[in-house]
């Protein structure tokens, strides 16, 4: 009976989602959010309950290798736990922030479907089944952004197109992998990275990165930050997508393919990771909107994860995975704090905020803890995971390490600016009275901030219980068997401390120069060379989606003429002839019963003559 608990993990949220859709929303406006929170609580309990077990369940479904196979391995149990935890926290939060929104019912239904689909994707042991769940997430993504119906539609389309294209690559990758391995069962596949295998790996990697939001598949996230509801940001780009994307990347790198430090694919991964870190954080640096700033940081942090996994070294992989967990924790905490600010102060434009530290103390403290974690300040969790990633990156090449370190600098600078502009200093708009957020919004933030501390100080808990078991035997012989505890490479620690100090100095310089917290990085913004790049970025010219749109536009005009001709054959010729045939036949049916009888009798004569002809009147 117990492997069926796995099915429950998928089926219960799906059923709850259906229920929410069918509930009449007028009578109990709080019902969708409450139901969602309850379901996620159940999911969390279930995830904790099944965590220590090793279940598997297979059911032949469609043939051709597509089976309904779910399996609970250490890794998927851990991710499932993460999914359940974050969805619970966010739905508890959104119970308040979205309670009165007219789209609450649709939004919460889609949240529940997302949870169900994510659980399915994580538990799936068959590539085709995995693909089904993954694609389903595309739909819920679109639906959640478009939940409020008017403005966000363009963003939803953008998200759909970008993630959809990467999903297409994923599909090809899955087909190729299945073909190379001869099976679609994920636990049975283990391919070397050469020739077609590398191509398959890259395709799958594109799919994973699209979901996780790495560059160049990132440009929808900042738009969504502005248009989509806040809990959505906390849940999807903040935590779930990273968990799923990096989970899949890790599965592909560790299980499905044999990623070694010697292969060029590993270098490609690290390059993408490093580029993402730096480019995204540079964009984040100059943002004036709280939410957009956080969105760019989300993109940047993914770079660390990809870099870590790309090193193909145990220390880097563990670091990348740990960073995934930590990022989920502090990123969602940061988005939730943005939501609290938006609710209480009414805006997220940094130019209009300020001095919230006095009126929203708890929010401020949670923000500070999360900001310190993301910047890599000890003893919070971000520091430990970043150190592991640095260690791995340095072993593979100093350039990667340098970029990652630079990224940390800008991250810290950016958050110093954000914190100063929003929470400290003089309030820009003194008239509005701001109070602390209500406790259902505070509790999740506090829990997450607490986790930042716990996962940092007692990092053996997540590392040894959750992450290192993923690597299994590869962990032996490295570092005395565990990466927990304080990092041993003091050079790296020193450099990190130095970079943080540099960031503080930079901030002080910036504030002194412009007199306001928000101007803390203006000198970087207007630096020669960078300023023109920033100007281009502001116009959207650097957006890969737009560039794609441009290329597509040109190509489509070229093909238009050819298309017209083919189209004429189908919708012109074929349709007209079909309609003509239909018209002729209709005219023949004039309603005269005698005519119909004639037809019947003529048909009978024809049939009899045919029969006679064939049987030849045998004698």
């Amino acid at each position, binding site marked *: 009976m117990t492997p069926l608990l796995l099915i429950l993990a998928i089926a219960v949220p799906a059923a709850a989602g259906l229920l929410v859709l069918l509930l009449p929303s007028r009578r109990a406006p709080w019902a969708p959010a409450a139901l969602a929170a309850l379901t996620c609580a159940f999911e969390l309990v279930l995830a904790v309950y099944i965590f220590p077990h090793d279940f598997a369940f297979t059911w032949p479904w469609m043939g051709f290798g597509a089976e309904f196979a779910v399996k609970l391995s250490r890794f998927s149990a851990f991710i499932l736990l993460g999914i359940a935890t974050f969805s619970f926290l966010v739905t508890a939060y959104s119970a308040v922030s979205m309670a009165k929104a007219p789209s609450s019912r649709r939004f919460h239904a889609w949240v529940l479907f997302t949870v169900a689909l994510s659980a399915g994707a994580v538990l799936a042991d068959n590539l085709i089944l995995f693909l089904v769940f993954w694609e389903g997430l595309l739909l819920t993504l679109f639906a959640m952004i478009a939940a409020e119906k008017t403005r966000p539609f363009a963003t939803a389309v953008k998200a759909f197109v970008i993630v959809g294209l990467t999903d297409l690559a994923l599909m090809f990758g899955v087909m190729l992998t299945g073909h190379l391995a001869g099976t679609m069962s994920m636990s049975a596949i283990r391919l070397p990275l050469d020739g077609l295998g590398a191509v398959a790996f890259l395709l799958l990697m594109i799919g994973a990165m699209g979901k996780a939001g790495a560059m160049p598949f990132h440009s929808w996230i900042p738009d969504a930050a502005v248009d989509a509801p806040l809990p959505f940001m906390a849940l999807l780009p903040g935590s779930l997508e990273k968990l799923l994307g990096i989970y899949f990347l890790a599965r592909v790198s560790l299980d499905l393919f044999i990623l070694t430090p010697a292969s060029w694919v590993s270098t490609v991964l690290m390059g993408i990771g490093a580029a993402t870190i730096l480019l995204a954080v540079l964009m984040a640096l100059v943002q004036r909107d709280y939410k957009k700033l956080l969105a760019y940081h989300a993109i940047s942090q993914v770079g660390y994860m990809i870099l870590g996994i790309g090193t193909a070294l145990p220390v880097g992989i563990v670091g990348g995975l740990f960073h995934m967990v930590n990022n989920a924790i502090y990123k969602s905490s940061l988005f939730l704090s943005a939501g609290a600010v938006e609710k209480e102060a009414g805006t997220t434009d940094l130019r209009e905020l300020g001095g919230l530290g006095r009126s929203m103390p708890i929010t401020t403290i949670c923000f500070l803890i999360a900001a310190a974690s993301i910047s890599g300040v000890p003893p919070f969790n971000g520091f430990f995971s970043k150190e592991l990633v640095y260690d791995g990156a340095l072993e593979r090449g100093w350039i990667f390490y340098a970029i990652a370190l630079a990224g940390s600098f800008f991250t810290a600078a950016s958050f110093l600016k954000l914190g100063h502009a929003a929470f400290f200093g003089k309030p820009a708009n003194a008239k509005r009275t701001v109070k602390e957020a209500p406790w259902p919004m505070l509790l999740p933030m506090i829990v997450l901030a607490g986790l930042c501390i716990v996962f940092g100080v007692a990092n053996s808990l997540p590392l040894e219980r959750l992450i290192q078991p993923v690597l299994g035997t590869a962990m032996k012989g490295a570092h005395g068997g565990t990466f927990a505890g304080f990092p041993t490479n003091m050079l790296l620690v020193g450099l990190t401390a130095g970079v943080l100090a540099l960031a503080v100095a930079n901030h002080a310089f910036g504030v002194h120069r412009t007199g306001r917290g928000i101007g803390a990085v203006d000198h970087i913004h207007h630096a020669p060379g960078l300023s023109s790049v920033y100007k281009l970025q502001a116009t959207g010219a650097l957006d890969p989606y737009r560039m794609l749109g441009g290329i597509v536009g040109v190509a489509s005009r070229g093909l238009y003429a050819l298309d017209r001709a083919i189209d004429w054959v189908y919708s012109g010729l074929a349709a007209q002839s079909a309609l003509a045939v239909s018209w002729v036949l209709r005219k023949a049916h004039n309603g005269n019963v*005698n005519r119909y009888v*004639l037809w019947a*009798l*003529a048909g009978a*004569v024809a049939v009899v*003559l045919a029969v*006679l002809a064939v049987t030849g*009147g045998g004698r």
Partner: protein
Amino acid sequence: MIWFTLLLVVLVLAALWASMTTTLLRSTLGLALASALLSVVMFSMGATLAAVMELSVCAGLISVVLVSVASLTRPRSIQEELASRRSRLRRIWPLPLVLIAAGVALSFVHAPVDIVLHLPKGDGDVRTVLWSLRQLDLFGQILILLAGALGVLVLFRKEAKDDD
């Protein structure tokens, strides 16, 4: 042989008259005549029982039923009658023509058919045939009668309602 052919020709003509005439009563008359001629044919071929059934049921009973149902109908007005007469040839001329033409054409088709007349097995007793061999068909015919009765109930009540 000649009488036989003549009988068949008159039978066909009676049937044609029954379908082309414009009054219900004349039609019923034509049907009765055709049935009577058919029973003569059957008698001359040696199927005495069948001839008797045909005469009594079809020529007799059915004609009575038809006439009584026809009495429930509204007689046609003069205009309807004239219009029907004028258009009837136009309406149905192809049908008998085609039938006759097909018959002629088929007669030229040399289908080497070996007709072996199988005499009915067992005793030809009507009672045995009806009650033990063909009970199911009897049941079916009762159903048709039932349906017909329902039909008369429905259609004429409806006519009456529509006329009110």
